[in-house]
């Protein structure tokens, strides 16, 4: 059962930040798709709850070819899923959203809330990191922007201090010859990944690997970048053998925790398989890309 709290409903981001600064024992609710479960389990019992769901200032999807994509924090998953420009420029993002929980959750849940919740099994993290996204958060005093892979620090913990609010996610414009892919391993389509892997590949004109990213989901306290695997690929002509190799590294580097759904060994193994497959998929996209 949810403990009582004072409900605050700011009319602007400015007001929201002021309120947040004013109250110590205070939480932000936006879509609340994760928060309300936590509150119900009594794991959190804030004295104040600030509702930013209706802050339309933060509800936007902007794209231009130089600057790339900018997502306001209160943009819902469903809005991202249904955006034509994102479907055109970042298909992996849409594909990920289509498999994120259920339509009901995507209708109400927001990208900012999802990232702030920092669940290592969350879907957007790995894909956005593979796409080299950065995240902007701010408080009453000012704003900070960090690369998303530095944003997550531990289970359900981010760089944000008390008073900080996620404002925007920025995804740079995609490379001309690049691709990105994400897949989670689960038993039911609509559930969180037991483990997951995202990969992005950018190619030089000569077809060699310009850049690559491998990011694992639910394979540690935060979305996990496997730089060793990335370095292995950079500069090389990519092939199945390298992907296989990268997969091996990923399963070694991963820090998955066993539970009733899968042993540590199985998680490591599947992470290797997914990494291999996603790299290949991203590579093939990059080759096709104009």
């Amino acid at each position, binding site marked *: 059962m949810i403990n009582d709290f004072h409900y605050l409903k700011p009319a602007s981001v400015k007001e929201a930040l002021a309120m947040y600064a004013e109250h110590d024992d205070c939480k932000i609710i936006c879509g609340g798709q994760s928060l309300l479960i936590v509150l119900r389990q009594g794991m959190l019992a804030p004295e104040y709850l600030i509702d930013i769901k209706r802050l339309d200032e933060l509800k936007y999807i902007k794209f231009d070819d130089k600057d790339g994509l900018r997502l306001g924090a209160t943009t819902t998953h469903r809005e991202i899923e249904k955006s034509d420009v994102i479907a055109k420029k970042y298909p992996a993002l849409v594909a990920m959203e289509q498999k994120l929980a259920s339509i009901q959750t995507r209708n109400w849940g927001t990208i900012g809330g999802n990232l702030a919740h920092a669940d290592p099994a969350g879907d957007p993290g790995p894909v956005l990191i593979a796409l080299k996204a950065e995240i902007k958060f701010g408080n009453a005093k000012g704003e900070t922007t960090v690369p998303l892979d530095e944003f997550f620090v531990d289970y359900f913990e981010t760089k944000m201090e008390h008073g900080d609010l996620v404002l925007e996610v920025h995804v740079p414009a995609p490379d001309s010859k690049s691709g990105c892919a994400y897949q989670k391993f689960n*038993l039911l389509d609509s559930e969180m990944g037991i483990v997951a892997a995202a990969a992005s590949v950018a190619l030089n004109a000569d077809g060699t690997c310009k850049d690559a990213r491998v990011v694992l989901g639910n394979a540690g306290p935060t979305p996990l970048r496997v730089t060793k695997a990335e370095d292995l690929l950079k500069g090389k002509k990519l092939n199945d053998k390298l992907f296989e190799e990268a997969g091996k590294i990923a399963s070694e580097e991963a820090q998955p925790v066993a539970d009733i759904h899968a*042993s540590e060994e199985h998680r490591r193994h599947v992470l290797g398989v997914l990494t291999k497959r996603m790299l290949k998929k991203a590579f093939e996209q990059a080759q096709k890309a104009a």
Partner: protein
Amino acid sequence: MSHKKYTVINTPVHNIDGVAKVTGRATYAFDVTLPGMLYGKILRSPHPHARVVSIDTSKAEQFPGVRGVVTGKDTLGIKQGIWRRYEELCDEQILPLEKVRYIGEPVAAVAAITEEIAEKALDLIEVEYEVLPAVYEPLEAIKKEAPTIHEGVERNINVTRHIEWGDVDDAFEDADYIREDWFKCSGQHHMCMETRGAVSSFTPEGKLTCWTGTQSAYYHQGLLAGVLGLREGDVRIIAPYTGGGFGGKFELDAAQFCSAVLSMKLHKPVKIIFTREEDFIASKRRTPMFYYVRTGVKKDGTFCARESRMFSNGGAYTGMGATALYLTGFFHSFPYKWRGYRYDGYRVYTNTMPSTSMRGFGAPQAMFCSEQQIDWICADLGLDPFEVRRKNGHTEGYEVPGQAFIASCGLEQCINEIENWVKSKGKLPANRGIGISSCGFMSGGIFNWFDTPYSFSSAVVTINVDGTVEVHVGCQDIGQGSNTTMAIIAAETLGVKMEDIKIHSGDTDHCPADLGAWGSRQTLMTGNAVKMACEDAKKQLLEFAYAEMGINIVYDLDIKDRWVHIVARPERGMKYEDLVKKALRGKDGQRIMGRGYYTPHRKGMISPAYSYMMQAVDAEIDPETGRIKIHEVMTAHDCGQPINPLGLMGQLEGAASMALGYAYLEDMPFEDGKMMNPNLVDYKVIRAPEMPKTPIIEIDTYEPEGPYGAKEAGEGLTNPTAAALGNAVFNALGIQMKELPISPERIRKALAEKKAQEAQK
């Protein structure tokens, strides 16, 4: 104009409660609110096995908003169980006085003005436990050194069941090939969408009314009366609508008992609704089973003998588990002819939640072992699985020695249909396989361990002046559509239209006793009672028709579509409505009332009739990750004469989804007696995207014992699927799955073992 055979049966009709359900008007116990109603919550044991030293409820009682707290001391301390005939099997005190035997067992209950206050008050109840050593697995619990869970029960063996026919050892002598295997079948939760719950109201007249979801209002009336020391007639069970049952809602549960005890103490209505977590940890589950199976066959695939030993994890109490123990043993022989068959089943107490009946009633476990082993034997001997099943399968007129008589059997047609379907699929791509499994099921059990003097089913039919019909039955519509089925049978028998029929069920004050909705009873048993009652009423009408129409006595009269007519000359007749009015006048205004009942006699040990089916599962496995994708589930099914085609289809598709869940998704892992996934995030139930197409072919047979030739449909189809998937995996990857559920990790493990073995060769 012609005299049609059936005008209602096997025509597509809407369920009679359909509109109420699609408009949200259907009210469940979950929705019931009464004036002055209090809300109850239950305090549950955190220990798998402990002596309750003391319970201090004073703080909780003083908490603002709390109206009362009850513990075992407020009860009569009666040990209850649904096997009333056998005292030693009535072993459960809800709110126990001395010992708790599983995590989640109720120890106290609070009633308050809000649910929230009641929940807060639970924390103020101080219970002192003396923790005792606990045991969770049957093979551990039978060891000498294992703790005793029920005083005086040696080695924790709760019940044993033994079945044998023919000279088993002699039959094994004749076998050219003998195969032995061990299997481990997991538990499964009923996971009804409506969690268990009840609203109880005890009034100064000394009468108790309980609104609750149930599969058998009469059972709950009897059980509640028993534990509360009331007369059965002073307890009224009202089951408005029930949000699913699947075998989990006909034993007395803590919501019903605790709300009743609180209401009797406080003289106010009390509502208790289980949370999903409570429903998981403190209700009941499908019985986990360990099977040893030894089968002997001839070179040509003729079955000689089978002997099986089974240990089931009974959990803390008996409940319906004793029945599952017998049925799994019987259906383990099904649907084949064995010269010699022997089964020894042992139900073992453990410190886990009680296990009980669930859709299939022990048969899905039995089939998982039997049907897979048959395919492995075929592979070992290079035989054709279809041929072997045809060769040994039941046939019409066969008698299972001392157990059952098979009056109708469409097994061979089922096998032929599935064989054609599988052949039509041709060669499959790599890592994809089709597995088959045949089976059958009962149409209601004939055992009376509830020890009631009432008939198994009864019905009362009354015809109103305008021709509308009141049908009072004790059967329980839990979503399977029994009310609609009874309406169809009534309309057909009386020769009226569906809209003329009103079904009254689920209220023990107005409906005759009936054992309820379990073991696939109702179409056959209550159906027969309804048919008999309608024929009784119809006869009373037709007497007047003969007189009124002044026709030759040798003519045969009938009613169809509200037209009373001569069978041979349908155009000669009169309106049913007019006949009813005339008959009423003729009888000095006496209501035209028909009575019917059904109790099976001389029908063997199990059931009056058996359905047959064969199923094929087309599955694809990702050999790298072990993930399973089900492409299609094809079924050929013999349920005798279909009564309600739409309902039949729904039941069979529903069975397939639940059975697929059992086969590869649903599991109930325990650690130190604690269920590890008591929520719908971690307990995986199949959802729409995973659900494959499930085409079904109906095989027409006629079951002489069933109403209009009908028999079981809907429960039995939970039986073949796990085995069929196992066989699909075997055919796709050549690995043998001996443990449920068939998880990605188990598949990978089996693949690794296979590799290792091949490396040795």
